[in-house]
Structures are given as structure tokens and as C-alpha cells.
């Protein structure tokens, strides 16, 4: 029944396309947790992702293909294989991991220089805000130097996969931008 209605809505709003979102970030940032928080609305126990997880998420009548790619150092080189046809990127930062913030920053920079991602919008989620040692969004923003980004729709928000705070807000923003960019 639900599928019947959703296909009607698709036709109404003329949105037949799936949108592709990548969730990237260093290992342990919380990407998989965020993915499943989005999909099932709850926190699950995760193991380090060797490879990728992909789920189709219906969010506000939009169909999203969300790819959560493993963040271990040996796996990061493969992110490039998934860049094609990506509309949005969620970059997840572990707000408590101050030591590796610069590594995260470098990875982010490198990624943003890819030709294939030039039209993708960027949402930076500073995860684990529920923890005491979490750095503030401003501090992280400074470290990442996002204000330098030109020709890119971007936003930075705090969130906690554990509690669920901030996740949907972030996604809302992402969806709006993606829809704007892709309505033709």
C-alpha cells in the first residue's frame, strides 16, 4: 500500500530519480551509526566497516541511496570509486578526536578537489556532541577552513548518533539543496 502511494507522489512531484549520498569520514567517526540512525531510527552496535554499507532510505518522499564507506586508512583510497553520480556528501567528524582533526581536514580537502564531485553539496556533521570532550562546531569549522570553499553549497552542524540530535536537521538541509540543484 505504501508503495502505491509513494509511486503516485513520485509522479505528482515529477521526481523519479534516486539521489545518491555518500557518508565519508575517518574510521570511528560514526558514519555507520548515522546511516542506520537514518534508516531505522535507532542506534545499533557497529563493527568497523570493511568495504561499504548501502541502504535505500525514503526520507520525506524522496528516495535516497546512501552509501557509508569504510574510513580505515587502507580503505580510503577506494572512496574515489564511488564518487560518480553523487549528489551530496555527508562528512562525519568525531568531535572528540582532536588529534586526527587535521588528517580529517586533509582527507576532506583532497576529496573536494575531485572533478566528479564538483557539483555535490557538502554537509559536515560534527558527531558525538553528546560527549564532554567534544569540540565545538566553531573550533572544528576553523580547523577545516570551510569558509575557504568556493562554488560549493556547504553547511556544518553538530549531532549525536547516539541521541539522535541534529541528524534530521542535517538531512533536511541536504535534501533541500539537492532538490534545488536537481530540479530541471
Amino acid at each position, binding site marked *: 500500500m505504501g508503495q502505491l502511494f509513494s509511486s503516485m507522489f513520485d509522479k505528482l512531484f515529477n521526481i523519479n530519480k534516486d539521489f545518491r549520498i555518500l557518508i565519508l569520514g575517518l574510521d570511528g567517526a560514526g558514519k555507520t551509526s548515522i546511516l542506520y540512525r537514518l534508516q531505522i531510527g535507532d542506534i545499533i552496535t557497529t563493527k568497523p566497516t*570493511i568495504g*561499504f*554499507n548501502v*541502504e*535505500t532510505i525514503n526520507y520525506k518522499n524522496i528516495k535516497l541511496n546512501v552509501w557509508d564507506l569504510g574510513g580505515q586508512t587502507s*580503505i580510503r583510497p577506494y572512496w574515489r570509486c564511488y564518487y560518480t553520480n553523487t549528489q551530496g556528501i555527508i562528512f562525519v567528524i568525531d568531535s572528540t578526536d582532536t588529534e586526527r582533526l587535521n588528517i580529517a581536514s586533509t582527507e576532506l580537502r583532497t576529496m573536494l578537489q575531485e572533478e566528479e564531485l564538483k557539483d555535490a553539496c557538502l554537509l559536515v556533521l560534527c558527531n558525538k556532541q553528546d560527549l564532554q570532550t567534544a569540540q565545538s562546531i566553531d573550533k572544528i569549522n576553523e580547523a577545516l577552513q570551510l569558509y575557504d570553499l568556493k562554488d560549493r553549497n556547504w553547511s556544518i552542524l553538530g549531532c549525536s548518533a547516539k541521541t539522535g540530535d541534529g541528524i534530521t536537521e542535517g538531512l533536511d538541509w541536504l535534501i533541500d539543496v539537492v532538490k534545488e540543484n536537481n530540479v530541471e
Partner: protein
Amino acid sequence: MSAKTYKRFNDSEDSMAVFQDCLTTFNESPVNPNKCRKLLSKLYRLIINSVSYEPIFKPQEATSLFFSISKLFQHQDNDSLRQMVYLVIKELSSMSDDILMATASIMKDIQSQDSIIKPNAIRSLVRVLDSSTALTAERLLKSSIISSNNDISSAALVSAYHLLEISEPTSKRLINETVETIDSKKSNGKLPIKLPASDLNSEEFEKLQYYSAHNTHMSQYHSLALASSLKKNDEMGLLKLIKQCDPTTVDNPFARMEILRLCHRLVLKNSSKIDIILPYLDWSLNGSSTNNFIVLEGCKIIFNLKLRDMYPAAIDRLSYLINDRAISSKFAAVRLVSDYCHLLTPELANSIAADIEVLVNNENKSVSSYAISTLLKIGNSDNIESLVNGLKGSGMSDDFKIILIDSLAGLINRFPKVIVDFLLDGLKSHEGSNLLKNKIVDCLSILFENDSMNNTLDETFKINILESLCDFIEDCEYTDVLARVIYLLGEYGSKISIDSSVFVRHIYNRINLENSIIRAAAVTALAKFPNITEPLLKNIAKNDLDDEVRDRAVICVSTLNHQNDNLIPSVDPNNLIHSDRYLRILELRMNKYSEKNDFSNFDIPAEYEIDIKEIEADQDMKANLESNHLDEFTNEADESSQSADDGNINPSDSILEAKIRHKYTDLTESVLNEVTKSKKLTDSTSEFLISCQRFIFELNDNTEEILAFKIENTMDFPVQNIKILDDDNIIENIEPQEKVELLVKADNVVLENDKYWSLSFEVDDFEEIFEFNAL
């Protein structure tokens, strides 16, 4: 044929076109599952059918394909696509890099509820792992093995079995679950759970449950094999496994076969365990739900272990197998009888022969050949002739002809005429491998040899054979066969009483026309006809181009001059069994001779039996040299390293003992009581390195002590006439760096209160004395 079908039949797809197609199609979103599955099967077909020596896709391309296919994982709830995805991923996994990227997706499938895809996922998982990541699969494999679903359990067991190749520890951790599975009866997966039952009426639905596949319990087979592999060195563990296998619970036929084979192996290692196998053999032959392949295994074991009491039962079952419709049953049964017919009593043999006779006319060549060969072995004179005649022109393959000829070899003395006919045909035929023709010559040799001992054949028959062989050598492509036939002509042609010039002529023709190996064989053969061939041989000795041929001719001529038959040793190349030992001694002696680089006369001394032991021990010592890093000499001289401690006799000691007994014949009756360890009597900087071992013999309370000295000359000039005072034994010469042995009666040497012994030697006729520590 329409144009469309023609194109399809002659479809030579450009691999690059398919490649591009794949990359585009699989990246689409949403994906069309049927289109993808069709494309995947096209890709699969392309990959496996390519005949080029290089893989059809280079690593980079294969990896791109792998990645684009892995993206198809995003499409959930589509088992038909997913199954195809797994199939192609498995294929690409041995030609792509970075395949571990699929790991998370595969693991997710394994953990899902969907049981159709789980087995495929498990089997694929193992192909993206390597030795370092193997352990991550352990938990998943464990839980899969104990699943109540046979397909899932089997998939995990089989994957663990593959893993033995790179990571046995991982598989070892699964042993408990594996053992549990051996006698559990797991059912196969049911149809999709998402089935909308409301669409069927209840009757149809019930029928469906009933038809939902037989339960074959294959996981019993896989778990038993895995467990026995993991426990292969643990005999107690294997026995426990077998005890666990109750015929009522372990009903998978493959598993039952493994049980039989496992029992068989255990009994072979330890014949006292025969009891464990008997109940299984019983139900393999007689059990009501037994299966043909179990019967076969049971019979194999019965004959292999020579369990006579069970022969009749086995033959009875084999008779059923022979009459079974399936070709494999017939073949396997008749082959088994052929292998073991020599164990059967005449009654049993005849009873099974009746069944086998039917097979002689079977359309399948393999079966009929084995049938014929078996009947020949069972050897009834009634049918031999018709059988052998039936073989002619039957177009049998070489493999079977060889089997047949092996059987004929045992019969040739009893039925010479019939068999020889067949053999000569085979020899003359232009077809036939080297091995086949050699086997034929084997048979003929046996025939002639037997005749030369027992004089059973009449002359005309022999002459006919030899004449056929003469024809044969005119046109034979195999040098070794030709040489052997020439030998036969020489050896046996010369014994024929009539004029043998015909043989000589044929052999001599070969001299002019063939290669040096043949010519050499011909020379030896011609020498058997001395009266005719002497001038020929002299000619050859002068003029032939090849050394070996001339040498042989010279030897033959010179022995002819001596008119003494015994000088040409008739070492029969066709009968090496007797001379094997002799050849071995010869070889060892010659090796030693050539090592010494001394061109004095080569001879085999009378005591060559001792010789051979010494040389063999020598070789063993040399083989241990690298691992011990010890010189043979110092090995013995070093007290701590002697291996006599474990109760085994040091081989060099037994050699020395033999030498002592040979030299001192008065010790024949004495018993060797004690052998001491070898002790160094000089330090390493002395002119002579001397060590000594005491051999104490006893006879009727009299003891006799022999000292075995090992002496090495460390100087850079030879010394002569060495002896230990006051013994009489002399060593004539010791070269620099040479080691020698000297056996001396202790009585002659040991003087009271002597702390030093002396060794006298000569250099350039000057006598010198060397003192060294006494024992």
C-alpha cells in the same frame, strides 16, 4: 536459420563493449534487475569461455568490473539479481584487486534473514578474505555451521574447508560446531519467506510444503570431511568421530562413503583396529537403505584388507553392480574384480566370470576392455582363445591394451600360440605408444626365458616369432624397443639349431642404417654368433664413428679370441631383477672410484657386501653433513654427539663390526659385548688426527678387544707403511688429508703403565715415530 539466430550462434562479443555496458548499466539508478542479470550472465560467459592465454580482463579492468558489480548491492530484496551478483563476484575475485571492499556488504547478507541468499553470500565471503582477515569470518562461520538449514551449514563448512589452505587455525576454531553437525539432520531451505500465502489456496500450499525438495543432509558429508581433516594426526579423535557415526543418523551417502574411507585408513595404519570397520562394512553391503556407491566402497575395502570371510558377500553385491544399468556401476565393479581377481577362489571367480562375460559385448569400450582383461586373468582356457581373437581389430585404446597385455603376461606360458599372434600384431601395427610396444616385448621376453629354462616351445614356432621380429626391426620408430628386440634376436636366435644367418643378416642391416644406440645393441647381439660375425665385428671395431659401438666391438672381438664364453657376462638387459643388486654395487663403487680421481685399476673386491654398506653409510653421513655442520670424522670423534644413546646401533659401528669379523675370523663365534664411543687421542693441530673406538667381544668368558683407529694425515705429503706399535697391521700409504681405518688387537698395543702409544710411519724411506695419548 534466421539472421537473428545466426548472429547469436556466431556471437563473438567484443569484450570491451561488454565491459563498457557493464560499467554504465550497473551504475544506473534505479537499476533494472533483469537487464542486470542478463548482462551479468553475458559477462560470466565471456570470462569463462575465453580461450586466450591471458585472462580476458586485465587486473585494472577486472577490478573496475568488480567495483561496479559491488554497487549492485544497493538493490535490496532482489534475490535473483543478488544470486547472479555473487556468482560473478566469485569469478572475478581471482582476477581482481582490492576485493575486500565487498566484505561489509557480503557480511550483511549473511546476517540477514533471507535464507535463499545466505549460502551464496557465505561462499563468496571466503573468496574475498585472505590470511590476515580470515579470522573476522570466524564468528559468522560458526553461527552458520550450526544453522538448522542444510544449505547454510554446508556453505559454511565448505568455506572452512577451503580456508584450510591459507589459515588452518581459523578452521580449527570451528571444530566443535563441525563435529556437532556430523550426525545432525538438517533440512534444506524452504521457499521464500516473503511468500504471500494468501495467494494460494491452502491445498496448494500444503502440497508445496511436501514437494519442497528431498532432504539429503549433505552437511553431514562436509562436516565429517572437515573434522577428519582437522584431526588427521589425532588417532583417538578420529576413532571418536567414527563412533559418533551411527548408520541410522548419518544417512547421507557421501558421508557414509567418507566413514568407510576413514575406517579403512585407520585400519591400514593400525591393523588391530579392524573391529571398528566391520559393522560399517556390514551395513554397506547389506543395509536396507544402502546406495550403490557405498556398496562399491565396501567391496573395495574388503578386498584391499583381504577380509576373506566377506568375499562371497562382496562378489554377490558386485554381481548386482555389474548388472546395474548405470555405466559407472558396471565399470567400477568390473575394474574392482580385475584388480583383485587373484584373491578369489576358483568358485567365486567363475561365478563372477559369468556376469563379466556379458560385458564383453558392451558398447562402451572401457567396460568391454576391462571385462576382457579380467576374464583373461581369471584364465579359463575355453574362452581365452575366443577372447583374444575377439580383441583383434577392436580399436581399443592404448591404455587398455596395456592393461590387457599385463594380464596376458601371466598367461603367455600357458597359451603361447594364441597370445603371441595378438602380440605380434600389436608390435607390427604402426600405431601404439612406446609403453605399449615395450610391454609387448616384455611378454615375449617372458616367453623366451621360460622356454630357455623349460624347453616347452617347438623350434618352428620360435623361428616364426623370431622371423616376425626380424621384419619388425626393419620399421620401428622406438629406439629402446628396437634395441630390446635386437637383443632377443641375438640371444635366442643364436640358440636355434638351424642356420642362423638370416638373423645375422637382419641384425647387420641395422648396423648400417640406424643410430649409435641401435648399432651398439646390434654389436652385442652379433657377438652371439661368433662363427659368422668375427670379421664383421673387426670391421666395426675399426670403422664405426661412435665410441661405444667400437668399444663393444673390440671387447667382443677380444673375447672371441679367448674362446671363453664366461668372459662375456650375460647381463640380460631384459632381466634386471637378478642383477639389480650387482648393478647397485657397481654404481656405488664407480662413484667412489671417480671421486678419488685415481686411475688405478678398478675392481670390485670380494668383500663387496661390506663395501656397499660402507658406501651407503658414507652417503648418509654426507647427507647429514649440511644439517649437522660436522665433519664425519669429528662427528665420531666428538663424544657428545654420538647417537648410540637412544639404544639404536650407530650404523658405522655395525660396519666396523662387520669388518672386524671379516678380518679376525677367530671372532666368528664371539659376541660383541660393548662398543665404546670414539675418542680423540690427538689435538687438532697434530700431524695425525687419531681417534679410537674399542670393540669388546666375548666368547665363553674370554674377552677379546679390538681397537678401531681412525687416522687422518694432516700434513701435505703422503706417508707410507703406517702401523700402530706393536701391532702388525700396516697401512701402505696415506695421502694428505686422507682418512683411513686401522683395526688392531688391543693386546698388541696396550702396554702396562703406558700413557702414550706410538705410530710409526715412513716418509721417503725414513722411519718416523709419532706419539699420541693412550686411551
